[in-house]
């Protein structure tokens, strides 16, 4: 066991400070240390996207980053996207359009999709399929995930227009 490192991160708006071994993976920190169990583990090799979180404005697979690399950064997980009284449009759209079945990929999917829509508020179907290709779903066949993301985009754009 090597010397512990001093880590400071902000997760979903809350500062966290602790000592961790250099080898501690971010997904482990979130799930085991901080009890943030929305991000899941499907592979631990960067392939499935179940662990996707947002770090300083970028989608990141939390299974392949050491927490030490995230020190000083702000992390958003599915838990930080919305709350029961104030759901993110993607959260409602996934339910409305049956964009999930077992739900295991869903937190990573929605977290990734939220980033995608920030980068590209009006994606084509092709852009959605390409932009979501880092997230695997074994249940839905993606068709309804694409539909959910399109619906959320439409809703967010309408809300944006109404606000302007």
């Amino acid at each position, binding site marked *: *066991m090597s010397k512990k490192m001093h880590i400071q991160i902000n997760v979903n708006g809350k500062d966290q400070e602790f000592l961790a*071994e250099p080898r*501690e993976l971010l997904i*482990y920190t979130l*799930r*085991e240390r901080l*009890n*943030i*169990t*929305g*991000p*899941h*583990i*499907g*592979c*631990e*090799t960067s*392939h*499935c996207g*179940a662990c996707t979180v947002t770090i300083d404005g970028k989608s990141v697979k939390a299974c392949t980053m050491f927490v030490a690399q995230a020190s000083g950064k702000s992390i958003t*997980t*599915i*838990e930080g996207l*919305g*709350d*029961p009284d104030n*759901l993110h449009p993607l*959260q*409602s759209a*996934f*339910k*409305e359009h*049956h964009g*999930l*079945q*077992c*739900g*295991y*990929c*869903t*937190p990573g999917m*929605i977290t990734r999709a939220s980033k995608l829509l920030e980068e590209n508020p009006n994606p084509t179907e092709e852009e*959605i*399929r*390409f932009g*979501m*290709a*880092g*997230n*695997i*779903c*074994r*249940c*839905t*066949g*993606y*068709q*309804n*995930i*694409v539909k959910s993301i399109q619906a959320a985009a439409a809703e967010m754009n309408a809300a944006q227009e109404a606000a302007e």
Partner: protein
Amino acid sequence: MKDELDNREERVANLKGMGCSRKRVEDARFTQGKGNYVDDIKLDGMLFGDFVRSPYAHARIKSINTEAALQVPGVLAVLTAADLAPLGLHWMPTLAGDKQMVLADGKVLFQGQEVAFVVAEDRYAAADGIEAVEVEYEELPVIVNPFESLKSDVVLREDLDPKAPGAHGPRKHHNHIFTWEAGDKETTQEVISNAEVVAEESMYYHRTHPCPLETCGCVASMDKVNGKLTLWGTFQAPHAIRTVVSLISGIEEHNIRVISPDIGGGFGNKVGAYPGYVCSVVASIVTGKPVKWIEDRMDNLMTTAFARDYHMTGKISATKEGKITGLHCQVVADHGGFDACADPTKFPAGFMNICTGSYDIPTAYLEVDGVYTNKAPGGVSYRCSFRVTEAVYFIERMIEVLAIKLNMDAAELRRINFIKKEQFPYKAALGWEYDSGDYHTAWDKALKTVDYEGLRKEQAERVEAFKRGETRKIMGIGLSFFTEIVGAGPVKNCDILGLGMFDSCEIRIHPTGSAIARLGTISQGQGHATTFAQILASEIGLPADSITIEEGDTDTAPYGLGTYGSRSTPVAGAATAMAGRKIRAKAQMIAAYLLEVHDNDVEFDVDRFVVKGAPERFKTMKEIAFAAYNQAIPGLEPGLEAVSYYDPPNMTYPFGAYVCVMDIDVDTGVPEIRRFYALDDCGTRINPMIIEGQVHGGLTEALAVALGQEIAYDDMGNVKTGTLMDFFLPTAWEVPNYETDFTVTPSPHHPIGAKGVGESPHVGGVPCFSNAVQDAFRPFGNTHTNMPHDHWRIWRTANELGLHS
């Protein structure tokens, strides 16, 4: 009480019963990251267990030294077979009547086999402990081919008496497991040898894996004070797991509570019992602390529950006009090191004898030989009912091969051989009695929708254009018509470990007119909490939104055999309807009492009982529920509850017609799916939205299997596809949009006529994708190539057919 809606239509809509696309009640927690999967469980003082696994596929274990591992900080214990042997737990029974090592007992039989179990304070310490365990192996000759295995002098299973019969009868060789036959051998051979036309083909249905996004795992917690064991896990059959744990551990069943929390997909992977479960239980007993075991993806792909691996040889005979007269099917089944197939006891090759498919084939014979090799055990039904995927692939390929031989259109060949509507219930040559079907209608609808003739014309033009050098893309039209057999099943012929395959539902109506129902099944994404409430809403007239569905806790749910083989709707769904009808029967008596008429003078209407001929006189189910708890009704017990254990009289036989249109670039080997049309007939439709979702998902898993997904081994028994880098899981980028369609042919023996749908698209999809690839090459002389049709294999086919010169 004043909650009556005036209009009948409104009252029906208010129930959100059968037939409506009710939104899923599960989704709120999943979309907010509040699911409760087994790896989310955290208990005080919980430890983490993980395996030392064999790097060799076949080796003798000369020694295991755990001393250094026990010195690793955080490591509390290391279990080996020697520790489990005094408890008799170093081996465990498999679902197929064989036994399997929990921890390597003297030798290992496949790469990744469990050798020792390290128990530590956390995952990192467990990993350090695994590194420090020293195992000395002596390599033995490796056999990865079942045909070689049957000829080899090498004895894989030294624990078995080579002369003694196995669980399914006599064994022909020390590496042979069973021979299973169905149908009439002599007559079939005679019919085939005297036939006008015979087509023959050998095909290998490769080994693959269900690979749900969540791997298998459990948390075992032995409470020594109260003598109770609680076991949370990714179990598709929690009650069966409880019984198995009791039988092998000696802990009385009432002292074991098995809980399946949210499950991140199953697809057959989570039916079996795995060494990790046993080791976690033992470790919890030894340490007195809860112990968690979670597979990583590599463990999952390498060790728990492969699927398929069937070498199938077929002969199909017909008249010159194309009327099929006989079918002969011979299978060599690679079961790996232990026979751990998850099939009903009397069916060691599952329902492979559905391989006559949707066709009226008068004579047939099937023979399956199970064989041991140095590969992982398993043989589960990956999104299908017990080897039905293999059976449907076999017949749908044989039809295509016969069409080539007859020089006939494959769609027409199917049409003239379909079992006719009026032949149902239809007794098939290999024993099953199909409940209902209308194949011609479904087929005609499918072909018409896709403009089949137009497609064939386009394909012919494309072939010409290709030959003229105007394009490098060829076009394939994949057809498949499948009949599934699901809903195991009648207790008289289906059991697992002696447990009849019935299922159950228990309902309690609360005084204010809401309810809870508990079932013996467990959802892994199918949305049971949504759909079973819909069945009940229609049966008992209370809104689905007022009905909680609970599954997966053996302390509260009635006994059931779990969810796999598309059995939840056919069996537990039937139990739900039957329990609902018991509720309704009592409600009728209560209503009659309240309305002061005779029982027979009231009738059920949507959400109430009305006096016959006087619809203005009624009692709503809500009022009746309250009365059940507040009135002393002569001759009736208070309360409103019911239980039903349903033993289905027969299986159900969903069917469907699929068409895939594909373009293939012969230079890159990349297939492009231009169109996929799927017509499913699953009988009565409970929730169209969920059905459609199941179809999308099943088709995508079919695409994966047909176009690239495999568990491959090298000659040394090394798994070549142990990570998601090599094991193909399609992403949104590779998957097309599907067109879904349906016909409705209710099951005549099911209380609500439903047949089950979750697996149909996989069963029917695999041959459809495969046929599309093969059809593209048919004009260039292709008869059959084996799956998976990955880019390289497609390119190779093109190359072998001379399309690159």
